[in-house]
């Protein structure tokens, strides 16, 4: 039993970070070059067996990727695409893994069979978080989005595949949220060291210092539980469902709490559009609430028999 990344996993993380650093600036919209680099690096098939056209790693490495995507608040339909790559439909799978069919996330909207879609592409695919099917989107109309880097649309959708594993979805969303929790903790620590007031770095004041300590603890708890849940899911342990739900609950809370406190730690500058702090707040709010989110996970977690 070991919960630290292996040297090979460390290399995967380093490689992901380097691609992200080359092709993405926090707060900037999705870039085509990042998407192409991601496809070229095999991110969309990272956890798909080689026999199915993937790279052959597992949900554990996908979770490590999700954490990194969260850390820099990457915009665009990465999550849906990584998840949809596990569809049994070989044709769809191939185009998804190749990056030519980006997959949005969607959930039911209203009583008329409509969908609310995040990161939609016109005429593209979406993963429905409520019934774990893949749909093709039609009739998109955009709405103002709480996270302006996540395109928000209303749409119709026609089912094209089903049967994706909701637990993989939960653990990867939790991964993004844990990455957010960790990134903003580091942002606060870094600002606490650099920013001076009253002749000293503000991180020497206990109010800031203790908030940073709490943020670090929340981030560590979320990240570690995401690691554990991904391992349990990979190994199909009997308590895998439980650990996935626990990861979902703890990561959602850590991301929202840390992201909101991070604004406070930055003072006025954290309230500006230019600073990235708010990007994490709105992203955390969306990912923690989509398809029932935290509330649904709390119910499911409590219902689990241990």
């Amino acid at each position: 039993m070991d919960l630290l990344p292996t040297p090979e996993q460390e290399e995967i993380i380093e490689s992901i970070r380097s691609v992200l650093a080359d092709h993405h600036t926090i707060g900037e919209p999705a870039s085509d070059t990042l998407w192409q680099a991601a496809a070229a690096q095999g991110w969309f098939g990272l956890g798909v067996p080689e026999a199915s056209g993937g790279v052959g790693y597992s949900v554990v490495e996908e979770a490590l990727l999700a954490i990194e995507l969260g850390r820099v608040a990457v915009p665009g339909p990465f999550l849906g695409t990584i998840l949809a790559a596990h569809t049994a439909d070989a044709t769809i799978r191939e185009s998804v893994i190749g990056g030519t069919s980006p997959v949005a996330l969607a959930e039911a909207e209203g009583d008329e069979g409509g969908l609310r879609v995040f990161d939609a592409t016109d005429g593209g695919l979406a993963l429905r978080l409520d019934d774990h099917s893949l749909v093709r989107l039609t009739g998109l109309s955009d709405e103002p989005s709480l996270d302006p880097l996540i395109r928000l649309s209303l749409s119709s959708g026609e089912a094209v595949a089903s049967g994706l594993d909701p637990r993989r979805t939960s653990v990867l969303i939790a991964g993004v949220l844990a990455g957010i929790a960790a990134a903003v903790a580091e942002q606060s620590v870094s600002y606490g060291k650099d920013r001076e007031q009253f002749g000293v770095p503000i991180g020497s004041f206990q109010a800031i210092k203790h908030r940073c300590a709490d943020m670090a603890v929340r981030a560590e708890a979320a990240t570690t539980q995401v690691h554990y849940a991904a391992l349990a899911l990979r190994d199909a342990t009997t308590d895998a469902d439980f650990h996935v739900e626990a990861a979902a609950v703890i990561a959602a809370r850590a991301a929202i709490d840390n992201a909101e406190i991070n604004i406070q730690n930055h003072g006025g500058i954290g309230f500006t559009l230019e600073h990235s702090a708010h990007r994490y707040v709105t992203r955390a709010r969306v990912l923690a609430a989509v398809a029932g989110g935290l509330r649904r996970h709390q119910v499911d977690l409590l219902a689990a028999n241990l």
Partner: protein
Amino acid sequence: MNLDFTPEEEAFRERARTWLAENLPSEDRPAMGQPMREFDLAWQRTLFEGGWAGINWPVEFGGQGLSDIQQMIWYEEFAKADPPFSLNNSCTFVGNNHGGPTLIACGSDDQKATHLPRILRGEAVWCQGFSEPGAGSDLASLSCRAEIDGDELIVTGQKIWTSYADVADYQELLVRTDPQAPKHKGISWVICDMRTPGIDIRPIETMAHTTDFAEVFYDEVRIPLSNVVGQLNDGWRVAMSTLSFERGTAFMADQVELAKVVENLIHEARTRTGADGKRPVIADDELARRLANCRAEVAALRAMTIAGISRTRRSGIPGPEASMIRLFHGELHQRVYRLALDVIGADAFRLTGVDGDGVWTGPYLQSFAYTIGGGTTDIQRNIVAERVLGLPRVK
């Protein structure tokens, strides 16, 4: 100890209610720029003509000479009248609540005569120039420099977080006039004409997608020495008199409005269907308790505000206890909008403006300013702990 309004106060409330019903604009307030300035100034002129400008300003300066209780009654009636704009969200705020009161407290006869009538009559917009990039919580470390040249100051430096700088006529500006003196001792408070050459204004967009804030750059801006309010190098004391006013009634409008926001949110929770598609949101035990707590808290906030007014009435000036109200209000404001996001479910994904009806996400984003602006809650807690409770300042 009593809850009685005097007959005069009751009559005031009645008059306010009637007047507001007849005079409140029904059109939306323009979001920015000259149209917004014109809207705000027009409303200020309407107030002045109706006899509602400077309610608690002394009569000798054109005010109504009324009490803080009447000021509160006015805010309450304003909120009840369901106005299409918030009270404090006006470019006339600084003139009415900072600049004007500071001139009343510390200005020369000439300064008062020049500026106070124009503020009340809606003829001049004021903005604030206190914070700097390097002087936020530690305001006294400001470095915007002013050198004396004959009968003028030559100002060079930068300010930040100046609301409505782009539409302002005057600025209450803190500058360092003696760089050799201890940091609190070398500051002066001056009236800066925003049309003076050398001023460059750059808007700051906020996370709530508003552009009210600006950075202001000063490149050898010449300000007559006669525009110094109070004594040269005594600006810190002058600024603190504004601050004590801030702790008094300046933010009362926000507090009154928050009570209305909580009632709106309770209404939202009663009428909106919850995540299960059956029960109303308010049937959720957790959300119901949090709503009840907020309702209790805005009630207590009002009681604290009235207790503060009672205290000021006895002592003449607002005491440091009022900083407890600011701290309580700032965090409660944020709590209310966080709760709102949990109440509205999937509607939280949809961005709205900061102002407007039936909307929550814009004000949620805006709520982060309430524990930062005008002194972070960390600073407010220091003030409460040190000046009210007498805890030691070292470390």
